[in-house]
């Protein structure tokens, strides 16, 4: 129902939001200690949040798949796992661009950065497993996805538990009003974009299943002949 009726309007809305977002970000005030480079926050943090969401979608879909064996759950898990890895690339590259200016270094082996890298590696491992794992990789992959999802709370709270260079989780709830608007606007825009891409990517997996079923039917036809 969503794909048939709401897909196009949501896609248009996302396009409009992303056309407007840079102007909102430019109009937002500078941060007192970091200046202009802090503007990276308006897309680094929302993409990080959507990445965390994607790991949860992948993990929960994997649990549903393991329990019910519904193929649609596996399709969503693959889509969300792939997006977690793609968004992880963006987070892990935009972060150092911000850090170079704010901290004076591109990378620091501190808890938040290291745990984020490990989380990304888990989802890269998940994708490699799904691609090259052979028979049974769907169940093994589901286990890896659940492990990756369980890792997220540690990544999130690492900035509060350990002393790190990375801004703490208190930054977002205490954002000044002029920064809060552009930030949540970006979060909603990336969230909607994420939903659209997951739907398209899960659709690709569904079509691959259809193709596999057709190949099996063709082989059966040959056998019967």
């Amino acid at each position: 129902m969503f794909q048939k009726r709401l897909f196009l309007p949501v896609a248009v809305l996302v396009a409009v939001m992303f056309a407007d977002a840079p102007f909102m970000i430019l109009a937002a005030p500078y941060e007192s200690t970091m200046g202009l480079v802090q503007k990276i926050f308006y897309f680094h943090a929302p993409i990080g949040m959507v990445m965390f969401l994607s790991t949860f979608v992948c993990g929960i879909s994997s649990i549903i798949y393991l329990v019910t064996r519904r193929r649609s759950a596996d399709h969503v898990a693959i889509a969300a796992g792939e997006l977690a890895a793609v968004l992880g690339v963006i987070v892990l590259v935009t972060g150092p661009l911000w850090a170079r200016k704010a901290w004076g270094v591109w990378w620091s082996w501190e808890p938040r950065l290291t745990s984020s890298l490990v989380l990304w590696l888990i989802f890269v491992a998940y994708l490699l497993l799904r691609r090259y794992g052979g028979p049974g990789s769907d169940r093994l992959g589901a286990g890896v996805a659940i492990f990756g999802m369980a890792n997220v709370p540690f990544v999130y709270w690492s900035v509060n538990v350990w002393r790190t260079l990375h801004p703490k989780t208190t930054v977002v709830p205490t954002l000044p009003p002029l920064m809060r608007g552009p930030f949540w606007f970006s979060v909603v825009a990336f969230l909607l974009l994420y939903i659209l891409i997951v739907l398209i990517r899960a659709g690709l997996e569904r079509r691959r299943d259809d193709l596999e079923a057709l190949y099996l039917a063709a082989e059966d036809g040959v056998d019967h002949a």
Partner: protein
Amino acid sequence: MREWVVTCFQRMRLAPAMSCLVAALVGTATLHAQPPPNPASPPPAPATRPDQQPQAQTPTSAPQTTAAQEGFVPVEQLPNPQDSVPAPRLVASAYALVWLVLMGYLYSIWRRLGTVGRELDTLSRRLSSGTRRP
């Protein structure tokens, strides 16, 4: 080359090995992670405004930065307009990278959809022509 990689992965059963690798990475990260701060030690230096001197009173083992960590404080003017590291270039690079990666990913999905669609059409045609045979 690609087939060779696939064959290697399938023959060597690298899936369990990859899981072990990930577990080892997590273990290493945990070992290298810094211990929680000592409650007796002084708190980290607060974020400084441009008109204030940074208070570098933190222990040497703690990470040192003047960048805000607890919360952001907005200002109207750029704090240091003549910095050595060009912030506009970094912001533009980050923004360009976001769209480059997302567009590249969407393009890859579009290509894969096209390939599967073509294969589906070909196979459907072959199957339907096969059923029409006497």
